[in-house]
């Protein structure tokens, strides 16, 4: 069982998650760089994995004591480039240092091409019980243009191997709206993913992030993702997921009951989490901190006995209220209106958004009714002045 039992879109779950605790661990290693990716990643540095694991352990050891963890999330990069032993040591360290709550969710991201039965068993032994596969698409042409090296068959088999090995919860990531992806191709990818009966599905509109190979290509004249085509793809996905029994619980996330992602639920509830590794962001005691992003700088700082922390952000109470709405409204469950929600509902922009059917009160909760226009709401929230009515 998961601590996130019940419907993933329930208001109760959404609000409870605020009080949970999580730890995020970043594994930056990748076989190659995907053109759209703007995460802290390194390629060709696999030789430094042991050094990095040692650094992570040192960083974890140096973190002040905290409360037991309800979730551990190992993301990347590509965590599956590490051995189950290496990952297991980190999970052990976290458990020993902070303690693990009952039914804590221990999750990692994996690339389908790395996955096999041995690895899966090793990871289960290391304490993982949830896996998230970067399948991205089941169309070889789309996979090619996304720079992915696996083939559709590998993604499908990874999911069934994970199931057979005994993973409690399996997620599939897909990316839609790649220029050149047709409606039919998207429908086929989606159907193929749904046929694998994942417990959780994350569907992301391809986004051109600054500083990526994709953004340079677009600047040089390559086709950019078309927001209208992405809207079509999104709407098709909503219908298909609903038919497959998956519950839409955040802008880009669907899950079966009992399978909401604990670590992410904490983020959207403005809950707190520790974070370790290159470019990792934590939220503790009301302060958001971020680690240095560059791989060598991270190692040097840790090995030199320095803090890897590069910046922090402490918001004032009003800004925190705005932040609570900005991220909380990404959920289907919405938010308790509170001071910020009241202000939003009474503001000019809030009125416009209600008239346009984007924003509304559902069962007393402030809710974004058209998740595709969520940023309009986010900007309106950030435009509110303290005490505005």
């Amino acid at each position, binding site marked *: 069982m998961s601590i996130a039992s019940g419907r993933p879109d329930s208001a109760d779950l959404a609000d409870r998650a605020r009080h949970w605790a*999580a730890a*995020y661990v970043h594994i930056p290693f990748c076989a190659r760089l995907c053109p759209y990716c703007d995460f802290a990643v390194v390629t060709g540095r696999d030789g430094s994995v042991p050094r990095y694991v040692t650094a992570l352990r040192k960083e974890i050891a140096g973190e002040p004591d905290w409360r037991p963890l309800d979730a551990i*999330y190992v993301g990347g990069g590509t965590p599956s480039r590490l051995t189950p032993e290496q990952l297991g040591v980190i999970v052990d360290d976290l458990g020993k240092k902070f303690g693990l709550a009952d039914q804590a969710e221990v999750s990692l991201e994996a690339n389908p091409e790395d996955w096999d039965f041995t690895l899966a068993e090793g990871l289960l032994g290391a304490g993982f019980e949830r896996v998230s596969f970067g399948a991205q698409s089941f169309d070889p042409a789309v996979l090619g243009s996304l720079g992915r090296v696996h083939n559709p068959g590998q993604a499908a088999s990874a999911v069934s191997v994970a199931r057979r090995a005994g993973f409690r919860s399996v997620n599939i990531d897909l990316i839609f709206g790649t220029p050149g992806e047709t409606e039919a191709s998207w429908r086929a990818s989606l159907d193929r993913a749904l046929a694998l009966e994942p417990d959780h599905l994350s569907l*992301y*509109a*391809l*986004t051109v992030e600054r500083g990526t190979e994709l953004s340079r290509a677009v600047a040089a004249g390559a086709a950019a993702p078309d*927001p*209208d085509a*992405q*809207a079509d793809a*999104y709407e098709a996905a909503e219908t298909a997921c609903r038919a497959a029994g998956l519950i839409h619980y955040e*802008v*880009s996330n669907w899950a079966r009951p009992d399978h909401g992602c604990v*670590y*992410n639920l*904490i*983020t*959207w509830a403005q809950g707190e*989490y520790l*974070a370790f590794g290159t*470019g*990792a*962001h*934590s*939220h503790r005691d009301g302060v*958001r901190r*971020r680690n240095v992003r560059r791989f060598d700088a991270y190692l040097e700082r840790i090995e030199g006995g320095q803090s890897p922390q590069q910046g922090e*952000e402490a918001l004032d109470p009003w800004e925190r209220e705005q*932040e609570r709405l*900005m*991220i909380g409204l*990404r959920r289907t469950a919405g938010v308790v209106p509170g001071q910020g929600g009241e202000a939003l509902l009474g503001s000019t922009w809030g009125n*416009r*958004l209600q008239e*346009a059917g*984007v924003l509304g009160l559902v069962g007393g909760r402030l809710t974004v009714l058209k*998740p*595709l*226009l*969520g*940023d*309009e709401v*986010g*900007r309106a929230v*950030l*435009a509110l002045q303290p005490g505005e009515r």
Partner: protein
Amino acid sequence: MNIRNFSIIAHIDHGKSTLADRLLERTGAISAREMREQVLDTMDLERERGITIKAQSVRLIYRAVDGQDYILNLIDTPGHVDFSYEVSRSLAACEGAVLLVDAAQGVQAQTLANAFLALEAGLEIIPVVNKIDLPAAEPDKAAAELASVLGIHPDEVIRISAKTGGGIEELLERIVRDVPTPPQRPDQPLRALVFDSYYDAYRGVVCYVRVVDGSLHDGDTVLFTATSEKHEASEVGVLTPRAVRVPALGTGEVGYLITGVKEIDRIRVGDTVMHAARIAEPLPGYQDPKSMVYSGLFPADGEDFERLREALEKLRLNDSALVYEPETSRALGFGFRCGFLGLLHMEIIRERLEREYDLDLVATAPSVAYQVTLTDGSVQEIRSPQDLPDADRIDHMDEPFLKAMIIAPSEYVGTIMELVQTRRGMMEHMQYLSPERVELIYHLPLAEVVFDFFDNLKSRTRGYASLDYEPLDYRVADLVRVDILLNGQPVDAFSTVIHRDKAYQYGKRMVERLRKLIPRQLFDVPIQAAIGSRIISRETVKATRKDVIAKCYGGDVSRKRKLLERQKEGKKRMKMVGQVEVPQEAFISALQTDTDR
């Protein structure tokens, strides 16, 4: 006294300022060490554009071949058509004019127009071909053209190079020989012509005057006829070109007068100065400066409204032809409706506001003043499309026409005719100045000229055509107001009064342009062009369908918040037209004049 008062008439870049420099140098008015090229053009903008905006004058002492000293008063004239009234006032202060023509370019329309002004004023014309040192120079051809236009013999044309100084001697001698001595009427009551003025921060308004009759003494109490104001002449003097105080200016002399007046509009160019105690008949020809072109000027940032007002006040200190009144636009906020002498004047003012006062401006499309006759028989002058009465109250409308003179190489006659035809022009006259060059006279609606006519003419003729125009009359025209509506709301800044035949084209172009400039909103935004309640064109900006960050996880919160903050700041700079957010840039881009009108 041996006085010669003269000016130089020349087309832009034909070398007037260089010639003035040479004359100053040659007569020792200014030493070579002090010599800054083109001394008479003092404003930066003038130096950059190579044009003279404000006329100035300078007094030169020249010892002629006959051994006598002569006072040569060189009165500078503005070179552009917008300032023809100022030209005519400068010419009225002279007895002679040097008509300067570039040996490579030949006679141009403005030169000719100003030469005719000089002839009408009874001035002695000294024809000069300049730049004979240039490789492309064809002095014989230019001289023949000049001779044919003026009806003189080509031998009478002086050939010089203002750059090298060649021929300057001969020119100076000709000025002494041909320009008449001013009539001597020292005992007559004082009459002095104000041919220019400028505002000096320390001394107030400085008037340039030509004493026509009598004499003007330091300390005299004088009357300005146009304003009926009396002031004491606190200082009189001459420009050498530095200001040199003198006890008096006698008949025929040119100099400056300071009275302590601080407001430029209390001193009118063209006015007559008299002794308050000895009134005479004013000199003829005074006119109030008349605006030909109007445009709304708005600060791009509404916060700058006060700065714009102050800047306009300051500019007006030196430019009484600039008129403005506050105007409010729903789309652009608070600004000013400004009247200009012409397009160049408008452009200069805009540039000076942006450059010297560091203002970011949005200018509405230039318009002209229409005479609207209402059904009740009354007549209104309409300077802004918003002021146009409802169509059912209008009996008819008249628009200002120009007489335009175009001089161009004959091979471009076809393309010029084509252009003028699209601008509703009517040809009045065509004549060959030489086998290669032709002069065309058209009657054209001013409204058609204010939109890029000159740019178009230049590009069609590879820069070889020159244009001059003068106001002609008002003529009945089939005019309509085209409104542009965003989501059903008219955007005042985009309304225009236009000939019915061109209304559809204008409307279609504006809505197409705006469709590309207006970002998608929460709802579909129809953009329409309308004449009254009739829609003549329509486009739609489709509602936004997707505007959401795909991923927002633990590591993304701060970054995504900052991204939304930035976008929010961008939204703040948008103006609301009804429920529609319009970026400032959309107004600017949509109002940019274009070449396809």
